[in-house]
C-alpha cells in the first residue's frame, strides 16, 4: 500500500505519526540538539526511507521511536503516536510489550546485536516466548520456520549454532527472522546492509522487502545510499542538520527534487549512467557542526541559492505539491 499523496498533512489513522520531535544530547560542549522539530508519518505497509549523511539525525530518529536513546540523550519535545498511543508517555513495561512485538528493529552490525554466547535458536525463539507466552519447545519450532522463511539452509540443525558460526549475510538473515518473529506492524532497519557485500546486500534487501510485503508490515529504512533507497522505498525523507528538509514519494523526489540539498546530493553521486572522467558536481563546504548550527537554514552556508532570509531564519517544512514537502524559502 502506497501513501496517499492527496492529503499530505493530518492523515487520519497513520500507523506512526512523529510530530515536532526534538532530541538533544549532553556533550563536553554543552547540550547539542540532534533532532529539531521532526515530523513525519508512516502508513500501514509502506516503506519510508530516511536518508542523510552522518550526523544528520537519521539514526537518532530511529532510536527515539523505540525510546532506545542512551543516557546522554533526552527527548525535549514532541509526540510519537503509534497505533493511537503516544509512545513518549508509556511506562517501561508497556514499552517492552511494543518493542519486538509491534515494532521491531534491525541494526547495522549483526555481530554486535546478537549475543555471542546464546544459540541462534534461543535468540530467535526468545521474542516469541516472551510476547506470545509460548513454551520453549513451540517457540523453537516457530524459530526454525522463521529461519526457513529467511532462506537459511538446514534451519533445524542451525538452531543449535552460535552467531560466530554464521557469515555476515546469514547473521543479518537471523536478525530479520528475529524482527519478523512476532509479525510486527513496523520494522525499523538502520543501515541493515551497509556492512555487507553488494551481492549479499541485494539478497538481504530483496528478502526484507518481500517479507514485509507478505506480512503487510511498514518499514522505515535508514540509509545513506541513494541507490538502495531508489530501489526499495515508496517514500523518502531527506535529513540535514537534524531536520527533515524534504519528504516525497521516491519517484517524485528523484525526478524533481525540491530542496537544494537533495538536488546537490543527487548530482554529486556518480551513477552507472554518468559520463566517466567528468568532474562531479560536489556540494562545496563541510557538513554542519551540530554543536554550532547557524541560526538560519543549516544548509545555507553550502547552498549556492542562499539569500539573506535563509541565513536569518529556519524555513518550515511545507507542501510544494501534493504529497511533497520541503523546508526551503524557494530557489530557482
Amino acid at each position, binding site marked *: 500500500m502506497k501513501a496517499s499523496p492527496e492529503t499530505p498533512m493530518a492523515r487520519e489513522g497513520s500507523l506512526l505519526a512523529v510530530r515536532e520531535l526534538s532530541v538533544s544530547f549532553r556533550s563536553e560542549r554543552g547540550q547539542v540538539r540532534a533532532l529539531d522539530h521532526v515530523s513525519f508519518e508512516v502508513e500501514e505497509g509502506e516503506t519510508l526511507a530516511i536518508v542523510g*549523511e*552522518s550526523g544528520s539525525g537519521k539514526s537518532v530518529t530511529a532510536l527515539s521511536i523505540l525510546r532506545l536513546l542512551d543516557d546522554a540523550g533526552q527527548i525535549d519535545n514532541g509526540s510519537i503516536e503509534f497505533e493511537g498511543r503516544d509512545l513518549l508517555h508509556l511506562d517501561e513495561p508497556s514499552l517492552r510489550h511494543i518493542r519486538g512485538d509491534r515494532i521491531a528493529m534491525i541494526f547495522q552490525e549483526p555481530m554486535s546485536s546478537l549475543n555471542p554466547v546464546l544459540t541462534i535458536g534461543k535468540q530467535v525463539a526468545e521474542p516469541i516466548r516472551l510476547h506470545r507466552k509460548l513454551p520453549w519447545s513451540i517457540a523453537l519450532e516457530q524459530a526454525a520456520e522463521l529461519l526457513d522463511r529467511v532462506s537459511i539452509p538446514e534451519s533445524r540443525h542451525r538452531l543449535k549454532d552460535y552467531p560466530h558460526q554464521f*557469515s555476515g*549475510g*546469514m547473521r543479518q538473515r537471523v536478525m530479520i527472522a528475529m524482527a519478523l518473529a512476532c509479525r510486527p506492524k513496523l520494522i525499523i532497519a538502520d543501515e541493515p546492509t551497509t556492512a555487507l*557485500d*553488494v*551481492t*549479499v*546486500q*541485494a*539478497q538481504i534487501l*530483496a528478502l526484507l*522487502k*518481500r517479507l514485509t510485503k507478505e506480512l503487510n508490515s511498514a518499514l522505515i529504512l535508514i540509509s*545513506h*545510499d*541513494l*541507490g*538502495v*533507497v*531508489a*530501489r*526499495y522505498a515508496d517514500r523518502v525523507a531527506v535529513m540535514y542538520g537534524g531536520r527533515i528538509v524534504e519528504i516525497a514519494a*521516491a*519517484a517524485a523526489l*528523484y*525526478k524533481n527534487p525540491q530542496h537544494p540539498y537533495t538536488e*546537490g*546530493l*543527487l548530482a*554529486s*553521486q*556518480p*551513477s*552507472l*549512467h*554518468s559520463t*566517466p*572522467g*567528468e*568532474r*562531479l*558536481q*560536489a*556540494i*562545496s563546504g*563541510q*557538513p554542519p557542526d551540530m554543536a554550532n548550527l547557524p541560526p538560519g537554514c543549516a544548509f545555507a552556508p553550502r547552498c549556492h541559492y542562499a539569500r539573506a532570509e535563509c541565513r536569518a531564519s529556519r524555513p518550515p517544512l511545507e507542501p510544494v505539491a501534493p504529497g511533497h514537502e520541503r523546508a526551503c524559502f524557494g530557489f530557482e
Partner: protein
Amino acid sequence: MKEPVSDLSKDNDILVQVEDLKVHFPIAEGVFRRTVGWVPVVDGVSFVLRRGETFSLVGESGCGKSTTAYAMLRMQPVTSGRILFQGEDITHYSPSRMRPLRRRMQMVYQDPFGSLNPRMKVGSIIGEPLRVHKLFTDKAKYKERIGELMRLVGLLPEMADRYPHEFSGGQRQRIAIARALAPDPDLIICDEAVSALDVSIQAQVLNLLMDLQEQLNLTYFFIAHDLSVVRHFSHRVAVMYLGRMVEIGPGNELFSNPRHPYTQALLNAVPTPHPEVESHFSHEVIAGEVPSLRNPPKGCRFHPRCPVAKPECSHVRPEWAEEGGTTVACHLYGER
C-alpha cells in the same frame, strides 16, 4: 594466465607489470602453530599499470584486492610470480633496495581517522615522507613544500599547526592525499579511499583526485567496492573473485557490456539512484555467498553460484579470451 598484452617490453608507458602473482597464507593449527595448509588468497593474477591511468580492482570482501596491492608494493610476502616496476624486477628486492622505490609508490587508506597520527601536527604528518626519504635541503624549503602540498589538495597552509581531530573526515582525507603526494610519487594506491566519506564529500575528494592526476600525471591503483564510483573514475577495471581475476577491460566497456556472469551479477546487484530504472529491477539476485578459500571450488571458482555454468566449469579452469573490448576468463567465450 597472462593478460594478453602484446610485447610489453617495448612499451615505455608501462609503470608496473605483475605476472602470475600468487600470495598464499599459511593455516596454522595446534599448540605449535604448525602450518597445516595454505589459503590461496591471490592465485595467479596478471595485469599492467600504464602511466597516467586509473586502474581499478573491484570485487567483494576477501577476493584478494587489497592483498594484490600490498604484494605489488612488496608489503606482503609473495609466494610466486613477478613484479616489475618500470621494467625492473623487484620481486626479490631486500628492504634496503626497496627503500628508494618506496618514495615512488604511496598509499591512501580508507579510514581518515585511523591513518593519521592524532599526536602529530598536520604539517608534520604531511612532511613525514620528506623527512624519511631526506627530500629537502633546508628548513625553509621543507616548510615551503608543505605549504605547496596543502594548497594543492585544497587546504590552507595556515592549518599546518593544527591536529587531525580539528578536521572533518573529508579534510583528513585531503591531508592523507597531501602526505601521499609529498615524495612526488608515480603511483598512488587508493585502498577504499573514499568509501568512508559522506556522499557530498566523496564527490569533492574524487574531483580532487582527478585534478591531481591531470596535473601530475599520476597513476592510480584504485581498490573499491562502490561500482558507480569505480566506473566514473577508472580507465581500466579488473574484476576479482576468490583470488583470481575474471574480467579485465576498459571501464566503459566492462560496465556497459559485462561479459563474465560474475561481473553481470555484481552490476545487477548495485542499485542506482533512479527509481524509474529501479522499478524495472527484477529482484532476481544472485544466490549464495562467496565460498571459503580454504577449500576453493575447482575449475572456475564462480561455478557453484553461476546461473549458466556448464559441466566443464566445475573442473577446467577457463582460459583468457578476448571478447569485444574486454578480456574474460569464462568457458562461455573463446574456443570457437
